[in-house]
């Protein structure tokens, strides 16, 4: 008992006295970074970091978190490298940067032309950075996006994170964390994809529903425009640098190709009727094969379950019409995927579908033997796309 008491007193004394041996920063002296944008200014050959950090006592609010306010402040730093720019931003804010809560990195369009791996290396090698940080590309500068403040969520950046996550779950874009992008960049083609953000001017805040019966502000006069941020396609990287931009349709095709599509609805017009089939449980398999001439090609097959969300006047027993609508939907998805292959692989010379991964998975010796020209092989091998949707009505019939 005596020993335990001594050990307890000793550990208590040590914990009180040893804390003075390590430099520490009070929470109020930390800038808890929520989102940051990185730009490269070619004219001055410098990097510019702009960061939104949590403001503990927002203006107009008595509580520490006032949900009616953006709750963020902005700090900017410039430097010869991303590290020095971040340090300068820290000096300007007068606070120690804390990156462990950062959930979003926006890369400016000029910086996208640079080696993306080097850009992200700073955040990845910093073990205190949050590993689940989304990375996006900007149409112009990242700073102009950081400047826009939203009042939704407990901090401004929450709205952007929700936008990205929602678009991803709806099948409109691929939202990857920084480490997943690094994994993608480590392939021999150095390919990656970032969702692209841009500023859009809208007449009303589309996210806030009007109250019923509310008169239009300004008594019929033209409404004020409000800046907001929207997702607009994606930035494609090849050899670790930006190689092109793809539109929203190709992004959907990309979702199918990379086996990331959770659910997708296709509306088929049949005379005056519109039928909507929703693809769910989508599974994409990329299988490399060799034809009779021993030439490589990729067999890309998509299988999905389908459900009629809008029947468009088709009866449950009208098999012929159901099959016709289903075939049209399959063709539409095939067309989206083919467009994505053309836009991404042929125009941007990028392999973000995982063709190399599939090839290595099936033929590792082929990849090793053709190490020198594997990029050319991957970018030139034909892709044969097949889409098969098993539709059923009310879960009773299956075709």
């Amino acid at each position, binding site marked *: 008992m005596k020993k335990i008491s001594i050990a307890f007193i000793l550990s208590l004394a040590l914990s009180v006295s040893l804390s003075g*041996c390590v430099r520490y920063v009070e929470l109020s002296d930390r800038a808890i970074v929520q989102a940051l944008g990185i730009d490269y200014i070619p004219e001055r050959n410098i990097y510019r970091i702009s960061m939104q950090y949590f403001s503990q006592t927002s203006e107009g609010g008595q509580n520490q978190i006032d949900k009616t306010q953006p709750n963020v402040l902005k700090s900017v730093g410039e430097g010869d490298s991303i590290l020095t720019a971040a340090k300068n931003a820290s000096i300007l804010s007068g606070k120690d940067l804390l990156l462990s809560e950062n959930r979003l990195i926006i890369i400016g369009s000029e910086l996208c032309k640079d080696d993306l791996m080097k850009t992200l290396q700073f955040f990845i090698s910093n073990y205190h950075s949050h590993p689940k940080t989304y990375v996006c590309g900007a149409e112009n500068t990242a700073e102009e996006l950081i400047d826009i403040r939203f009042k939704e969520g407990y901090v401004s950046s929450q709205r952007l994170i929700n936008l990205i996550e929602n678009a991803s779950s709806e099948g409109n874009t691929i939202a990857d964390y920084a480490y997943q992008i690094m994994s993608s960049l480590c392939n021999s083609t150095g390919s990656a994809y970032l969702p692209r953000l841009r500023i859009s001017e809208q007449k009303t805040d589309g996210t806030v529903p009007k109250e019923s019966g509310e008169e239009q502000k300004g008594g019929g006069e033209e409404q004020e425009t409000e800046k907001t941020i929207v997702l607009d396609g994606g930035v494609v990287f090849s050899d670790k640098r930006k190689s092109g931009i793809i539109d929203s349709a190709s992004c959907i095709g990309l979702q199918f190709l990379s086996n990331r599509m959770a659910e997708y609805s296709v509306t088929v017009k049949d005379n005056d009727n519109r039928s909507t089939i929703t693809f769910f449980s989508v599974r994409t398999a990329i299988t490399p094969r060799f034809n009779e001439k021993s030439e490589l090609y990729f067999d890309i097959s998509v299988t999905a379950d389908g459900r009629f969300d809008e029947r468009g006047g088709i009866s449950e027993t009208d098999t012929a019409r159901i099959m016709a609508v289903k075939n049209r939907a399959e063709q539409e998805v095939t067309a989206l995927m083919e467009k994505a292959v053309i836009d991404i692989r042929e125009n941007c010379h990028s392999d973000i579908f995982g063709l190399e991964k599939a090839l290595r998975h099936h033929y*590792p010796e082929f990849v090793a033997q053709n190490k020198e020209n594997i990029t050319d092989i991957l970018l030139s091998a034909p892709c044969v796309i097949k889409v098969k949707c098993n539709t059923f009505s009310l879960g009773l019939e299956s075709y």
Partner: protein
Amino acid sequence: MNRISSKQLTLAFIASRLTTEMIMIPGELIRYGSERFVAILIAKLSVLILYLPLLFLTAKFKGDNFLTAAIRKNRIYGIILGVLFGIVLLSVTVNSVLNLQLYITDTLIGELLLISGTALIIAVSLYGAIKGASAITRTAVFGTAIFVFLILMIFVTMADKLDFSYLYPVYIDDSNYLFRAVISEISCNSEMLVFAVLCKNITDKPGRTVYYSLVVIFVVLEVVNLLYNLVFGPYLNELEYPLYVISSLSDVVVFQRLDGIDAIVWLLCGIIKISLLFASAGELYKTSSGKSEKGWFLAIYGAVTLALCMFIGSDRRYYDALQSILHTALPLVFAGTVIPLIVLFTGKKAPRKEKENEEN
């Protein structure tokens, strides 16, 4: 005498080897692909072969370690072998302390002074060594249980992030890397040195410790390597502490990141490893001096370790030189295989009367 069971020592060895995997093995030697799976298998088979002289020695000189058998033959001869063994043991200890210190500054406390970090690690490890092998192995049971539980937890929470298409059939693309990985894996078995000294303290069959620990460590390392490959793919080649990154990605309901708790458990296991190395040094001293008190020796040994850590840690080139020497596996083979092999043929068994007295 500080008696320990083979099962307890097995768990201590598992904690020790897993710490090496998480903290001490150079990141460049953990690479994506099937080579490392094969390297772990070859290394474990090789280590089993390297253990053979020690296993034969424990069978031939029951209840003795190599030093006892050598001293019984000739005191000066025994002390020379003990000093040579001790040099390797000391270099492994210094390397382990520096690696642990580096890990703490990289991941936990960025601005920890080299002297305060190493001094604290050495002080805590010495305390364990003074309390004895039995106390260390009992702590290891606790540490290993949490360690394995956390790895399982990480696996479960990372289930949705595993990409099985990263796997491919066993194909050796880079035989040069395979060779380096095998040698490095062999060099990471410093538990062999601990076993060479503490085998005399094991109450039941000492060989069990070797068999059990090799099998369990082999399985755990292959599973952890599989986890690395499934999560990171080719990006694994760029990472220094892959399991730390994985644990920072895992969320468990209330806890947003598991890296903090993981790092502390690995730190505990690192302390266990260094304590075992110190305890082995203390046992060497006791055997060669014939004295039962080892406290003063351990205090001096700890001070020497601290001084060496300060010297080697002061310049990255010294640290790299030490790493490159140890990663050739030659020091380990010399101390863990060659010395026991020499003693196996030249050592002297205890006369029956002496043996009976010791047992009584």
